[in-house]
């Protein structure tokens, strides 16, 4: 029986992992708003840009990230920037208001990848214009200018000014943050689900299993997760339902301490789930 359960879990894990697919090349790890992997910026500029972009996000929810790379290994900057922006999920999920500003040293290209939600305020022509006037004008290695501090600062100031002006006109855009269910809420739902299954299980163990399985199915349906998760959650829910009764009886029900582990206070930066459609410009 033990071996059966173990092989069942291995099979489920395989099913679940088979549905996730990766990108063909490694997208740089998101370290913060400014990801200067090519080392073009001075520490002072780095910190200043971080602060400016953090303020911008607090005011407008718009997420802007900067990336410099040494070499794209033959990749086209348009597809490279899109993959990075998609992987980092810049911008809020419901507003797609993310923007990636990148530069690649070997290919000497700037690119501004604009999220769906910002295409209106930053049409491609405007994006290209900003890159030419503020980035190319200050740092164009072929012409011997290399002031990347000024280039990135200039572009960021322009973008921040345009976005802030737009949000001042439409402040409703600023109030929609955090549509995700936070960690604590999930644990409370989980506790309620276990207690329900436990009551059902007190009537009959199989009833507890059924309730647990239904709860698992309901969760998968509600979240819109795929079939592999549906199966996993039904099986796990059924299992929990079968034993929930005994868990509750043993007095664990009241004693389960659900520790909260939210780190919202820290300064970590991660994408909000925004989408990109290839808008933007390069120069």
């Amino acid at each position, binding site marked *: 029986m033990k071996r059966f359960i173990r092989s069942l879990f291995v099979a489920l894990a395989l099913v679940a992992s088979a549905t996730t697919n990766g990108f063909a090349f490694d997208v740089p790890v998101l370290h913060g708003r400014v990801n200067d992997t090519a080392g073009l910026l001075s520490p002072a500029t780095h910190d200043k840009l971080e602060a400016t972009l953090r303020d911008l996000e607090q005011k407008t929810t718009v997420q802007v990230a900067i990336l410099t790379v040494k070499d794209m290994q033959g990749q*086209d900057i*348009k597809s490279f920037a*899109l993959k990075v922006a998609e992987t980092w999920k810049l911008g809020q999920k419901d507003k797609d208001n993310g923007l990636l500003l990148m530069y690649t040293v070997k290919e000497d290209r700037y690119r501004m990848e604009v999220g769906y939600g910002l295409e209106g305020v930053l*049409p*491609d*022509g*405007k*994006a*290209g*214009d900003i890159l*030419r006037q503020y980035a190319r004008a200050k740092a164009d290695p072929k012409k011997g200018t290399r002031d990347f501090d000024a280039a990135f600062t200039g572009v960021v100031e322009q973008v921040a000014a345009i976005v802030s002006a737009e949000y001042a006109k439409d402040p409703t855009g600023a109030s929609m943050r955090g549509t995700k269910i936070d960690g604590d809420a999930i644990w409370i739902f989980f506790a309620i689900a276990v207690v329900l299954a436990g009551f059902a299980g007190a009537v*009959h163990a*199989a*009833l507890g*299993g*059924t309730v647990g*399985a*239904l709860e698992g*199915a309901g969760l*998968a*349906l509600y979240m819109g997760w*795929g*079939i592999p998760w*549906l*199966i996993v959650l*039904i099986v796990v829910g*059924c299992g929990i339902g079968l034993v929930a009764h005994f868990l509750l009886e043993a007095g664990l029900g009241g004693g389960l301490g659900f520790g909260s582990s939210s780190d919202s206070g820290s300064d970590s930066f991660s994408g909000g789930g925004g989408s990109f*459609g*290839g*808008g*933007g*410009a*390069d*120069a």
Partner: protein
Amino acid sequence: MGKPTVLWIVGSVAVFLIMLGVVSYNGLVSQDEGVSGAWSEVQVQIKRRVDLIPNLVNTVKGYAEHERGVFNEVTEARAKISQAVKIDASALANNPLLQKQLLEAQQSLNASLGRLIAVAENYPLLKASENFRALQDEFAGTENRVAVARGRAVRATKDYNQSTRTIPTSFVASMFGFKHKDYYEAPESAQNAPIVNFGK
């Protein structure tokens, strides 16, 4: 095992199977819709590109009135593709031939736009004008959007096809007639070739 226990087990299994069927069916429907939606997005982006053309033509005309040939060429290519973007997206999603026609119409439009840009490059005043540069950005941007939308349409089709062939959705797919979708995938060279070098 008493009678009630057996009933509970049978009942649980039945509920499980029904749930699985419902989720499979809903998943297939939404993936099917997703493929049509992705193709409709391709059309939207091509339309957006086509809508930019009069603006570009007029801008170039302002400086290069006599270059009649290239203007006619662009206008013809535009008329051809305007037909192709009016096709129903779900028909497009299920017909690789229509997809091929749309892509070819787009490529010939790109080629004629490339010649228009090349003509424009001969006029330094036009080349330097802010309006022309912004238009070039817009064209490069829409070209990229079309490429992104096409890539996503192909990916959506592949995902859908995978669902129609993998357990357990394959059972539901064969029961309710969700068929494998063929699609036209452009040869790699044609996809990546910068037919028009915008934004230089």
